[in-house]
């Protein structure tokens, strides 16, 4: 079960969280579930890194939090993207694409 998973490169967690929240506001658990699902269980986000990351993003003003009710009727903290966050997401997506393209190019040609 563990061996098909890979470690997230430094700094990509923020990007993934921003991207996930771009669709709709989510609570923490849902964010980690969504990333795991979409990546076909390759990426597993540890709570130990998820929550500090969420609070850090909130402090930077890229996401904001408000309390809501979950599907099973419990109080949950929902995070949503702010305007600054949306801009940041575009920036990071852009540089990520450039980075992966460059890395891919090197791997293929070298």
């Amino acid at each position, binding site marked *: 079960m563990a061996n098909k998973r890979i470690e997230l490169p430094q700094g990509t967690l923020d990007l993934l969280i921003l991207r996930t929240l771009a669709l709709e506001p989510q609570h923490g658990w849902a964010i980690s579930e969504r990333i795991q699902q979409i990546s076909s269980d390759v990426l597993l986000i540890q709570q130990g890194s998820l929550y500090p990351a969420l609070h850090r993003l909130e*402090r930077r003003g890229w996401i904001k939090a408000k309390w809501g009710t979950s599907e*099973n009727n419990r109080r949950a903290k929902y995070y949503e993207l702010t305007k600054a966050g949306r801009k940041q997401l575009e920036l990071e997506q852009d540089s990520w694409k450039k980075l992966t393209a460059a890395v891919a190019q090197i791997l293929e040609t070298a």
Partner: protein
Amino acid sequence: MFNDLFFRLRSLFRHDTVESEADTELRFHFDQQVEKLLKSGLTREEAVRRARLEFGGHEQLKEEIRDARGVNLIETLFQDIRYGLRILGRTPVISSIAVLSLALGIGANTAIFSLIDTVMLRMLPVQKPEELTQVRIREPRSPNDEPSPTFTNPLWEALRDRQDFYSGIFAWSLTQFDLSQGGAVHDINGTFASGDYFSTLGVRPAAGRLISEADDRRGCPGVVVLSYGFWQEHFGGEQSAVGGSLSLDNHIFTIIGVSASGFFGLEVGNKFDVAIPVCAAGIFDGPKSRLDRRSWWWLNVAGRSKPGLRPEQLEARLGVVSPQVFRATLPQDWEPKYQQDYLKRSFDSTPAATGTSYLRRQFTQPLHILMGVVGLVLLIACANIASLMLARASARHKEIAVRKALGASRARLIRQLLTECVLLSTAGALLGIFFARWGSSLLVRYISTGDTKVFLDLTLDWRILSFTAGVAVFTGLLFGVLPAFRSTRVSLTSAMKGSQGAEGESRAKFRPGKWIVASQVALSLVLLVASGLFLRSLVKLVTMDVGFDRNNVLIVRANLHNAKVAPPEQPAMFDEIESRVRSLPGVISASRSVMTPVSNYVWNSGLDVDAPNAPTGEAALAFFNFVSPGYLGTVRTPLLAGRNFSDGDTKTAPRVAVVNETLARRFFPNEEALGKYFRVHPDPGKQAPPIQIVGLAKDAKYESLREEAHATAYFPIAQITEDAEEQVFELRTAVRPSALVPSVQDAVAGVSRAIPLEFHTLAEQVDDSLVQERLLATLSTFFGVLALLLAMIGLYGALSYLVAQRQPEFGIRMALGAPQGSILRLVMRDVLVVLAGGLTAGVSISFAAVGLLQKMLFGLDARDTLTLLASIGVLSFVAFLAGYLPARRAMRIDPMVALRYE
């Protein structure tokens, strides 16, 4: 930015809400996860277990969230402070010892620094002090000497009238005035002030008006401005004082006003009581007034240059006026070669924002040395507290391990421990400021002598406060860093097991403690050596043969000028007083002279002898005293050969002199000086009469105890060539000298009631000349003993700790049959190692550093072996004493009790 701040503040002030929100959020996540696992078919029990495993430490995660939110820095600071206070309160004795020794260390540093600040660094309390510059005179003949700050009145007037680049320029001169009109002298501090003095300094009147240009004209009437303090003290601050009168040196002056409070003049260490215009010097001097004397140097000059004039431009302008001013004031009666030198002199400008100060000249070096001394004491105190902290940190071993296991990061723990240290040092600093206030005023009283009361405004300013704050933080970190880093390096498993660690580990743990104690020993040795050197210098100065006997001599200074006795009548009156005091009961012998030994007064001139290799220049300089026949006998300077003066050596008799050994040796090497003749360098255009040497006296100190013997000549006071309107009587007494004051006053009043008298003892006068030496010796000894005490406590503490740690080991050794003596040796070996290391380091530091002290020492080398050996001996004795108590405790350990501890 704003968002960030808001966020942190919200976290801080809504602490509980934020905490519970984080809890709720994490709880929700956990439950969701359990739900999910349940759905996948696990039992509830298994699902919870798996979720918990995945989740990791709940508290640790919360701590990381707090970090991510950036609350921690501020919030944990408050937490740490609260916790630190609680911890420190739990060991009140240790904490108070720590605070007290820090307070002593910080207090001593602050006290010395506040003196340095007030004497050397602080700006004058006048308008824009940074714009003030003092004018000085450069002497081309001795370019390496500091330019001279003193002016003659003609020179000052010529400069004032020939310059246009100062917006204000003024002259002043410090002096003392006698308030009494006969009887016991009541001296107060006076200042001559030129017309622009107060206006240039921007000082306002508190009552009446201040001296202005109109008051400072030749032939001016006597007007006086009081200082605020003097006005309060002598006139109760009454407005009616203005317009009243005051007698200064027996001349009546009219009070025109009072200067604002807080203004003490320009001399740091001295506050003026009264100010009178420069022109008033004419009132005291009579026709031969110093106002027109071209070689009477008595004024200082300072000014405020015109706006926009840069310092180098000011220097250039001064350079331009210099030749004109010096040409206009050339002293006509000087020898031509000195006149040439005079014309080459030029003005120089130096910043005067901090005023002038004789204290600065006299005490700069001692204060710097003392600053070093108290710095060392503080370091030793820090070392003590560091080993204390180290010991306590190992006692808190378990607490730290538990906190770490609960998820505290190492950085967090270090911060907590450092906070405790800074708390200690802050408490120490607050207490230290009180010590400093008390200590520095004590110091000021200490450096005040009978003649000169030192006045310093010791109010705390920002510089002193920031110095203290800086020292507090620095010391807190200094003694906190090592223990904090060491004690947080805990292996969780061994700590939780409950043992203090294996035996090997505990030995290793003592090593930093050893270092600390060894460095204490080293620093203490440096202090002991320094204090030993100062103490021995002082003892040498006090006990050496000075060539006169200072005990039981009363000195009475009588001023016939201020008594308004005409000069021709003065000799007879002085004679009359001398014979009256000689016959007083309790007086063994009495004499009179113009000088007394070590009195700060000097009368010297060059001598000519008829010999091929006669000394010239500096070497031909001899120091004079004019004395009555009883003088040498009264001060007990032995006459070695020839005769003393007698009543036959009158004004009209042939000129004679008694010279000391140094004069005889220098001017008449290889031959008998008795019966030979010499001449004093004559005034220009005059002939000097030959003077015959009739007696040879033993060398005696003339100016200071530190001097090499000066070539000295004594002349009969009846043959004095100049007016000496103030003369001194020496009375050797059979009783305590001061007990004779009333009868002397009565005796002099029998001659005239108008004569002002000033009383001292010769012993006081000699003592006062040793203020510097006594200050250094007393304080460095005090701090040396303090350092020794601290080092002793440090060593005792460190060894007690070591013995406690090795108790099981000692128990085993003794159970296996080791004799008590071997245990004692084991512990004492540690003492020896620490001592040897500390002493070696201490000796090298001493040798490297004591060279700095050489100038302050007298009669011994800074590397004096005896002092060094004595210091090492004292320190070793104290160290073994401190080590013996814990060693004895180790020796008496009951093996059974010791082993049960394991």
